[in-house]
């Protein structure tokens, strides 16, 4: 290629003709344009970097003492004496926490509402339509502030709603009863989760055996037994004693109200969670509705002709097929939800962004902090995309 071009180039005598040869050669033109563009970009980049040096750079300030407390910590322990890295990490954990819980409930709500939208029942389908039209078209930030204001309208702690002593609802937050254990509780839950995953794998593995006509006892039952055995054995090994943790409200001798126990849902966390779930749920509703509507109507009719019930029709025929076109846009919504969780800065829920903002206010270094935020969100997005891609591959494999 290049030698050919060179030969042509040398064979021409006048400069004008030489330029003409270059001008009409496609690969040279391509190279030339890209070369010019790169020079331009390098100059631009150089300009940006030279400007950036006038700012405070580096992450050294993150190693010093934070000096501010965070209202929400989860799993990791954090006090104001820890380093700013610790604070930042707590923020990351808080973001992941609200995103994961939000993703779970938004998906649930979206699927239910999407199915409701397609219901034959006029009222149910209109409720779903109204939900989508109202909540999708108002800004998320307004919804977050709205929920916070609503939760702060709950009665004061002195006359909190207790619902017969099982939970405490006041403007300090909502305490819900849960089952908990004194020691090793979270470890046991972790083991149970891992066992659950393992038994799911076991089930599909056994199913494969069954398909190859190996005589085997029911795979479903076997995996359930496996799960139960592991669960019970670890229960006794770890010495778990389960008890129901019912929140209580007491008044001490100074007339101060003290609430304790139960699972605490603070107004900030609840507000951001409600808003994220309801807002993202509208988009998921539309995705679910669109995907199901794009299925040929013959699928529904065939399922009806086979005598499947409505529940069977949805879970065995419609959803597995619709999932293929649901998952890619759903991934997008999950990413949006994660990014949108940074709006909790408006109501002081200490997520990544809120913590970074506090650090920026205390110690400057805006550019490195913003860079850190970018990296954090990019890697969170990457994890979600990876997970959803794996899921997508599994789903699209069914039935092929």
């Amino acid at each position, binding site marked *: 290629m290049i030698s050919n071009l060179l030969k042509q180039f040398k064979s021409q005598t006048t400069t004008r003709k030489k330029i003409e040869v270059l001008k009409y050669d496609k690969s040279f033109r391509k190279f030339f344009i890209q070369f010019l563009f790169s020079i331009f970009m390098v100059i631009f980049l150089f300009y940006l970097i030279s400007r950036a040096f006038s700012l405070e750079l580096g992450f050294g300030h993150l190693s010093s003492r934070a000096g501010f407390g965070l209202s929400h910590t989860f799993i990791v322990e954090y006090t104001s004496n820890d380093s700013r890295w610790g604070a930042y990490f707590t923020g990351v954990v808080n973001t992941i926490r609200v995103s994961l819980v939000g993703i779970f409930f938004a998906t649930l709500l979206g699927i239910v509402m999407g199915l409701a939208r397609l219901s034959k029942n*006029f009222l149910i389908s209109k409720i779903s339509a109204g939900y989508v039209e109202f909540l*999708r078209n108002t800004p998320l930030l307004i919804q977050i502030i709205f929920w916070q204001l609503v939760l702060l309208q709950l009665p004061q702690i002195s006359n909190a709603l207790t619902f017969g002593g099982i939970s405490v609802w006041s403007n300090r937050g909502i305490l819900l009863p849960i089952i908990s254990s004194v020691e090793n509780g979270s470890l046991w839950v972790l083991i149970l989760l891992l066992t659950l995953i393992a038994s799911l794998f076991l089930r599909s593995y056994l199913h494969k055996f069954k398909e190859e006509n190996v005589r085997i006892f029911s795979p479903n039952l076997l995996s359930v037994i496996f799960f139960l055995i592991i669960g019970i054995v670890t229960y006794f090994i770890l010495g778990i004693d389960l008890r129901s943790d019912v929140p209580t409200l007491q008044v001490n001798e100074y007339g101060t109200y003290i609430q304790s126990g139960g699972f605490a849902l603070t107004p900030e966390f609840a507000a951001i969670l409600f808003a994220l779930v309801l807002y993202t749920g509208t988009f998921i509703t539309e995705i679910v509705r669109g995907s199901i509507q794009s299925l040929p109507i013959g699928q529904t009719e065939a399922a009806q002709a086979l005598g499947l019930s409505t529940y069977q029709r949805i879970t065995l025929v419609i959803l597995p097929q619709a999932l293929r076109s649901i998952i890619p846009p759903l991934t997008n919504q999950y990413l949006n939800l994660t990014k949108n969780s*940074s709006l909790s800065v408006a109501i002081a829920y200490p997520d990544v962004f809120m913590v970074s903002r506090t650090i920026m206010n205390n110690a400057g270094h*805006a550019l490195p902090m913003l860079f850190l935020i970018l990296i954090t969100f990019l890697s969170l*997005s990457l994890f979600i995309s990876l997970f959803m891609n794996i899921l997508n591959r599994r789903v699209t494999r069914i039935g092929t």
Partner: protein
Amino acid sequence: MRIVIWIKENLLGSKIDILMTLISAYFIYFIASLFLNFVFTTDWTLIQVNRKILLVGLFPEEQLWRIWTVFSIFSILISATIGYLYKLKLRNSIFYILILIIPFLIFTTMNLLVNVLIILFFSIISYSVFYYLKEKKLKITSRILLLSWLIFLPTLFFILILFGGPKVTLWGGFFVNLILAVIAILAGFPLGVFLALGRASSYQVIKLVSIIFIETFRGAPLIAWLFFAWFVLPNFLPNLFSLNDINLVIRAMIVLSLFSSAYIAEVIRGGLQSIPKGQKEAATALGLNSIQELLFIVLPQALRVVIPAIVSTFIAIFKDTSLVFILGITDLLRIGRLIPEQQQEFYGKSIETLLVVALLFWVVSIVLSQVSRSIEERLNVSK
């Protein structure tokens, strides 16, 4: 009889259906009564008093004609475009009018009503003129339209700023949200087209730069980019013409434009991918060079397909302009939060003002989403 059959089929199909109907009827009753009770027991004088502040903030009273001029030129241009591009259905227009009546019920004064009626009158005239011209199939119509857009868009900005216009710091209220969104889309659109073309091009360097730009802006949440505009951006702007201490509103505009361009680029990329390969081959066979091919064959078709998605992006950006609240720009949301804090007689009426703010955003978004839906339907029909 028909009604009875309809009710039997749609509400009382089976036993479960009857149960569902009862539950949802109660649910609707519950929500409706809660809402109506709230609306009719609340004293809405707070909106009547703060009408102007909610809509335009601290914009000086004697300068309001600037906003009116911009608003009227803009609506005349838009109705002309609608008249040229597509036929309004009667049902849809009634819907738009019904929805748009809501804010007028809240905000109207005599003065405002007269102005709005005049603007409406001229918009309808321009709509019918361009509709008529389209029916006549005059070629010059599209050129007139394009030219008037090109001339008027910069003019709108000049009307707002030049010849003793109020400082940008005085901009506020719903006006700021609208103008931020409009500027973000108008400036983001051409950049988005370039980015989409760059991402689809075979020039590896250009492709790489486009991908990095798009993914960086899509990677972090908008609020982080707004903070970038607040703290860092002035350092990156050149020192010429005191560009490096421009107002926060303008900086937010810059960042919003870049942000929306990344999203628009992805939308347009989808449109580019939807063009069949045969179109490009046919263009090559006709002897068009690559620029002609792009301008006359690929882009017109791709842009046509993505119009609904661009409208959706506009809605998203428009809703996102409420985030400038966090920067301290006096946009609609900020004013809505400040009124119950600073005006003693309305102390504590946060939820009421917030709902009015939400209503304004909702009205604009729902009308636009209906527009996008009807364009989409039309595109599907013409396929």
